[in-house]
């Protein structure tokens, strides 16, 4: 029944949507065509080439609510002194803000795998971009279907 409770709350959802609209309208004009995730990615990496591959985003394809979604990012890399993952950035397309998490790694990690839990305001795509020690950029994208948008019950 709580699913119904969540669906019945309209005011906060409206506010959340408003906040998203506001942040989108603050973006420079050419960015509007790109969407918030691609814009954010370009803001970090400029015009550098980003190739698809080596990065795997592991997320449940369908979640009951977006407030706490488990996410694992893994990057194919030997993680040696000469060949390792320097950084990983994760972006989203529909939250009020496009960034999710950024992290720095070193060869001492042994394995370029990290797991965390994130918030998703509705069904959307996520992209993780790995920056390698040789300067190349690799990306992986995944879509998560959120059965209901992340919103609140009435406050207790």
């Amino acid at each position, binding site marked *: 029944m709580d699913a119904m409770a969540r669906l019945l709350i309209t005011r906060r959802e409206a506010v959340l949507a408003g906040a998203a609209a506001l942040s989108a309208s603050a973006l420079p004009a050419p960015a509007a065509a790109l969407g918030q995730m691609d814009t954010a990615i370009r803001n970090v990496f400029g015009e550098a080439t980003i190739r698809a591959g080596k990065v795997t985003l592991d997320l449940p394809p369908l979640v009951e609510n977006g407030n706490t979604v488990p996410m694992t990012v893994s990057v194919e890399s030997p993680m040696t002194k000469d060949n390792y993952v320097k950084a990983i950035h994760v972006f989203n397309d529909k939250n009020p803000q496009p960034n999710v998490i950024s992290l720095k790694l070193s060869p001492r990690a*042994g394995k370029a795998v*990290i797991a965390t839990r994130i918030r998703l305001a509705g069904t959307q795509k996520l992209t993780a971009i790995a920056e390698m020690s040789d300067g190349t950029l690799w990306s992986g994208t995944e879509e998560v279907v959120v059965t209901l948008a992340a919103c609140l019950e009435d406050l207790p």
Partner: protein
Amino acid sequence: MTARALINVPRKAKRGDVIEIKTLISHVMESGFRTGTNGKTIPRDIITSFACTYNGEEIFATQFYPAVAANPFVTFYTIATDNGTLAFTWIGDNGFEVTQEAKIVVE
């Protein structure tokens, strides 16, 4: 009550082993995008960074955004190199700072 953190580091490892480290900390991660019952935006209150050092050297560092869920949970890996101490530090809005340590024996 102060923030509470849970860390899972193997007590013992063989030199060169890749070990899994799990961390969990209590924090609301108030996104700054929510509205309170009074109609006003609830101010942002999040952890903004988390880092781990191994015998003083930084081996892992993250930046968190409001999209990280409440009670942040992070799992990562590192190579067991020496006996010693892993120190975990979370820093956030409103002067939030928590450091916790774990010992490891490397054979």
